[in-house]
């Protein structure tokens, strides 16, 4: 099970910020999330939304280890 974290407006939109999802890779994870909430699926795929796996930014596809932490990061606002 991957642990999925949402930040900023993505968490507001989804109504959650931390949950577990069964997925072997990012595509499967995105598909599982979109399947449940199509609006969220679109938002996660929008330009400007970055993905970090285990706190490292990744582009495109990535395999997910059993205990992977996947974070979806909307455009960063600075502090």
């Amino acid at each position, binding site marked *: 099970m991957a642990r999925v*974290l949402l*930040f*900023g*407006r993505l968490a*507001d939109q989804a109504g959650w910020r931390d949950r577990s999802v069964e997925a072997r890779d990012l595509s499967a994870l995105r598909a599982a999330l979109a399947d449940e909430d199509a609006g969220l699926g679109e938002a996660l795929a929008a330009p400007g939304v970055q993905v*970090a796996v285990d*706190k490292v930014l990744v582009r495109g596809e990535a395999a997910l280890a059993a205990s992977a932490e996947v*974070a979806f*990061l*909307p*455009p*960063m*606002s*600075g*502090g």
Partner: protein
Amino acid sequence: MKIALTDLPFEPGALVTAFCADRSETGAVATFVGLARAEQGAAAALELEAYPGFTDAAIAEIAAKAVARFHLQDVQVVHRIGRIAPGEAIVFVATAAGHRREAFEACDFLMDYLKSRAPFWKKEHGSDGVRWIEPTDRDRTDAQRWD
């Protein structure tokens, strides 16, 4: 080098005292304190979200760059997260160097990064509701000065 995120109010003066202590070869300490503005009542509170372990690592990376680029002797960043009331400190940056130009430029450089590119998500609770904030054009052009 000290980098910290805190969800409790902090006192910049106390940080300055500790940062300046026991320095016999530091000629210059530049500091910056960012405070939450009330905007004449339009901003009731600011809410800052970070990704612990990711946000502080990103700040530490840029702070290390500043140390190398500006030949700093020391650097400290404290960044508040969570709900912040007007008048409270949001961010504290201190830089120590032999001479003032390096200390000033490094502090400026770090603040431009922190205000425009650091991994925070900012929400303003105002009299007209809640909105997410994006970096301003000026934040972006300020940060580009260093690229």
